[in-house]
């Protein structure tokens, strides 16, 4: 049965034995104490939590983006180039999609072929196949922390390998992964793998090695932020229950800065509030700016503009992490030059903006935030009610009844009723609130905004509008 309950040390280590048997490299990381010692031997600023604390103190925003090549040689070359030419302060890590699906045998074959042909045949780094020694070599090859930044239905072995290898960050976000990373996994199964990973992070943390968990909360574009926030807060509840103390809170922008800033504020404030409500008083948050999952522009020029918006949002919400995508995002796995250019742009924009006093209209933010807060609370309070105070038990019921929903989920379990649409100014509104437990005035508020747009364009909203909203940023517009 689904329960948000900390795994006992026994349960955890018993499960760990099975996990480490999934692939031969698992046995190299049996000794957790040795891994903890290894972390302690690294320079303090190679630890992600320390580095993020430093950023917070110094008003810095560090760019990061997914990156992964099949062979370790090529991967390290990519990292070293990005660190040097792009002046990267953090390096993100993406495992390939076979590894994410636990298809280690498939990844092995592709890795072998990559080595043979000298060309990467994978869309990310096959972490498990490489094993802990290689990961440590990678960690030692650069001066900045490496941040695994990915999702999977079952990342247990992969994250275990990454943490043992010296990484101090990962992204076990149950509702990101349940909706987006697998077509068929059950919520129960996915929750249990995520509890394991978070328990592992908590274990390190309790033994003096702080580990940061990312709450990605990423939804495909055109889903209103309150639904994203509700999901994210639930995901964090799972994380902290297992002992995670440091959360990188992704605040995905849609491009309307009033809404983006308001959402980030609501997200962080309510997160602290619900954390306290459930008894967690010592969790530190690191806001993280990025765009919602959407089509990126194919043209390089337009893509740089997206990097700029991503960074501007980071500045406006006081983020420490600027989670960008390279200018090649829409086209292919980025080359090292793509990485360097993009990091450099993000860094220089950050340098330029760092001490500036930029604001978005306060009155408008407050109005937006107030609505959004009500929406999130309606969803979460209903879920806590459904679960008798247990957020995950409630969430499981909510998925079935469509109170938690996602129209673009890869997972077939989604009700897929909720639909979003942009208003005249590019903020996302509920076109259809599906089964969300919203009071009438909220539903009407959104309807009003949509009617405004219909009047302005002199045309009913239809599915062409929805498509155009999903693609507008890639065409270089906030809303068309």
């Amino acid at each position, binding site marked *: 049965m689904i329960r948000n309950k900390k795994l006992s040390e026994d349960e955890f280590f018993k499960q760990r034995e099975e996990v480490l048997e999934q692939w031969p490299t698992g046995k190299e990381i049996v000794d957790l104490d040795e891994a903890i010692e290894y972390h302690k031997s690294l320079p303090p600023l190679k630890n992600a939590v320390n580095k993020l604390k430093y950023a917070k103190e110094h008003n810095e925003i560090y760019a990061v983006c997914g990156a992964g090549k099949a062979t370790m040689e090529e991967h390290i070359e990519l990292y070293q180039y990005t660190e040097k030419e792009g002046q990267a302060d953090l390096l993100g890590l993406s495992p390939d*999609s*076979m590894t*994410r*699906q636990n*298809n280690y045998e*498939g990844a092995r074959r*592709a890795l072998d072929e990559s080595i043979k042909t000298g060309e*990467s*045949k*994978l*869309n990310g780094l096959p972490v498990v196949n490489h094993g802990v020694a290689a990961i440590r070599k990678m960690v030692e090859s650069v001066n900045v922390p490496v941040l695994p930044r990915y999702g999977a239905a079952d990342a247990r072995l992969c994250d275990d390998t990454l943490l043992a290898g010296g990484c101090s960050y990962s992204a076990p976000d149950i509702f990101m992964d349940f909706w*987006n*990373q*697998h*077509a*068929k996994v059950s919520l129960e199964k996915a929750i249990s793998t995520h509890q394991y990973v978070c328990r592992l992070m908590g274990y390190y943390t309790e033994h003096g090695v702080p580990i940061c968990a990312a709450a990605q909360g990423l939804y*495909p574009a055109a889903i209103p932020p309150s639904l994203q926030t509700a999901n994210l807060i639930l995901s964090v509840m799972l994380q902290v229950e297992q002992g995670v103390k440091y959360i990188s809170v992704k605040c995905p922008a849609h491009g309307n800065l009033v809404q983006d800033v308001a959402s980030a504020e609501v997200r962080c404030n309510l997160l602290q509030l619900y954390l306290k409500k459930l008894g967690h008083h010592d969790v530190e948050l690191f806001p993280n700016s990025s765009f919602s*999952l959407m*089509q990126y522009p*194919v043209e390089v020029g337009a893509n740089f503009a997206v990097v700029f918006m991503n960074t501007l949002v980071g500045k406006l919400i006081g983020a420490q992490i600027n989670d960008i995508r390279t200018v*090649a995002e*829409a*086209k*292919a*796995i980025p080359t090292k030059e793509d990485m360097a250019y993009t990091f450099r742009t993000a860094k220089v924009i950050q340098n330029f903006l760092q001490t500036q006093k930029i604001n978005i209209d306060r009155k408008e933010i407050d109005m937006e935030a107030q609505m959004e807060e009500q929406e999130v609370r309606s969803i979460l309070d209903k879920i806590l009610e459904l679960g008798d105070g247990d957020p995950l038990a409630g969430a499981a019921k909510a998925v079935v009844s469509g109170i938690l929903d996602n*129209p*673009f*989920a*890869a997972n*077939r379990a989604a009700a897929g009723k909720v639909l979003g649409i942009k208003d005249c100014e590019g903020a996302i509104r509920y076109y259809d609130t599906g089964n969300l437990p919203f009071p009438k005035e909220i539903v009407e508020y959104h309807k009003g905004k949509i009617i405004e747009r219909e009047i302005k364009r002199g045309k009913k909203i239809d*599915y062409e509008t*929805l*498509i155009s909203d*999903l*693609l507008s940023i*890639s065409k270089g517009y906030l809303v068309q």
Partner: protein
Amino acid sequence: MGVDNKLMGTVVTGVIGEDVHVVGIKIIERALNDAGFKVNSIGAQVSQEEFIDAVVETNADAIFISSFSGHAAILVRSFRDKCAEAGLGDILLYIGGSLLLKEELWEEVEKKFKGLGMDRVYPPGISPTRVLEDLETDISLRRRVSK
């Protein structure tokens, strides 16, 4: 298109391999639907066999394969042959997405996938309208030929 509510054809859609990228194909599905096609969506992470079973079941005119893993070239290998074996020699095979790991000249990519038995190949960002036009042409041609 589809204005007089007549069925324009049937299409099986899905995302091949270990791939979870469904947003694009969901858009295409909506467009097909609105244009009067019957859409049999089998979702993300499906195999060649699952595609073929769905076609047999619904007597579809076309398969829309979506792929963003960068492994498309491996994933559709001998798909055309398998279709033929299942008695679907003339099924239309459309593929779209982010097909390769490296950026390559579009002409090359298209040639490669046509060589692998695909009838139509689309780059990311393709407009659904373009796809619909092509599909109507291809279906009417196919019907004329098989008459």
